[in-house]
Every structure is written in structure tokens, then in C-alpha cells.
């Protein structure tokens, strides 16, 4: 009993480190947080969902926001896009001929990429909750 009480703070700290590790990994590479927690199916599904939205957004030549946005909507767009983790950095690196929001498809692309980012943040939070054992 006394041993269990002494071990609890260590185990709790380890659990918190594991949870934050899974969260950051999940943000950086969609699904990696779940992969670290041995949730293979969910890892694959989240990677595919975020990947499909991000690639479609890029292929439609949506606007990928940078950190130098001047207005509030630009900053919010940057934060949403940044949520896509590695897809954001790859998109910024590739550029794909730059955005083309003069057509409706380009505008859809902007929204799809932002949706990929926000969805990935949700998935990273899910990995955090699973690692904290608040969720199965």
C-alpha cells in the first residue's frame, strides 16, 4: 500500500510526459501520437483523413497562410494551417505555383487545408486524452 502511494507521483509524471509526447508527435505527424499509444487503426485513419484534406487543399491551390499575416483572419488562418503539422511545412516548402483564390476552387482549397489543420489538432488532443487514460 505504502509502495503504491510512493510510486504514484513518478507514474503520474511519466504519464504526463508520455501524454505530451503523444500530443506533440500527433500534431507534427498526423496519427503518430496514436501510433505511439499502439492505436494502429486510429493512427491510420487520422493520417489519411488529415492527409486527404491537406493534399486536396494544396491541389486546389488554396492559400497557405504564413506567420507574417497582418490581419486577425490571416493570423487565425495561419494557426489553423499550422495545425496540419508536417503537411503545413511541406506545403510551404512546395508552394505548388502559389495560391490561386481568383477561382472558387482555390477558395475551397484554403478552407480544406485549414480544416485539415483543425482536425489534426483534435486528433492530437484525442491522443493526449488516451495517454492520460481519460479515454479508451
Amino acid at each position, binding site marked *: 500500500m505504502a509502495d503504491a502511494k510512493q510510486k504514484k507521483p513518478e507514474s503520474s509524471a511519466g504519464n504526463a510526459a508520455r501524454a505530451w509526447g503523444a500530443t506533440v508527435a500527433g500534431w507534427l505527424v498526423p496519427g503518430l501520437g496514436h501510433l505511439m499509444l499502439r492505436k494502429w487503426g486510429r493512427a491510420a485513419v487520422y493520417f489519411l483523413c488529415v492527409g486527404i484534406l491537406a493534399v486536396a487543399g494544396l491541389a486546389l491551390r488554396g492559400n497557405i497562410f504564413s506567420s507574417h499575416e497582418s490581419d486577425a483572419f490571416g493570423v487565425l488562418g495561419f494557426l489553423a494551417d499550422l495545425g496540419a503539422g508536417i503537411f503545413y511545412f511541406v506545403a510551404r516548402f512546395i508552394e505548388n505555383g502559389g495560391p490561386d483564390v481568383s477561382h472558387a476552387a482555390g477558395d475551397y482549397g484554403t478552407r480544406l487545408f485549414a480544416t485539415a489543420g483543425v482536425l489534426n489538432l483534435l486528433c492530437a488532443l484525442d491522443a493526449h486524452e488516451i495517454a492520460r487514460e481519460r479515454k*479508451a
Partner: protein
Amino acid sequence: MNLSHFQTLLLLAFVISVAFAFLSKRRMGDRGKYAVWAFLMFLLVAVAIGWLMYPLSR
């Protein structure tokens, strides 16, 4: 790549429905039901809002 408004809606609705089903349900049967329900609701609500806005476009 070029997608129409409706094709983009179908893509978004499908992907988000599947992701939400996996985020919110644990059993595969529940996930399937939830994904189908969310997908249909996405389409229904989008088409309904489209028709509600139709008079404003004229």
C-alpha cells in the same frame, strides 16, 4: 485539380464524418452508424442552407 462546390462538399463531409466517428465512438458498429448519420446531415444541412439563401441571390 478542379472540384465543383458539391464535389468539395462531398469530400469534406465524407472525411470529417469518418474522423468524427473515430474520435467520438469506440465500437466499429457505432462508428459506422455515426459516420453515415453525420455524412447525411452534412449534405442535408448544406442543401437546406443553400435553398434558404436562394431568394437572396435573385
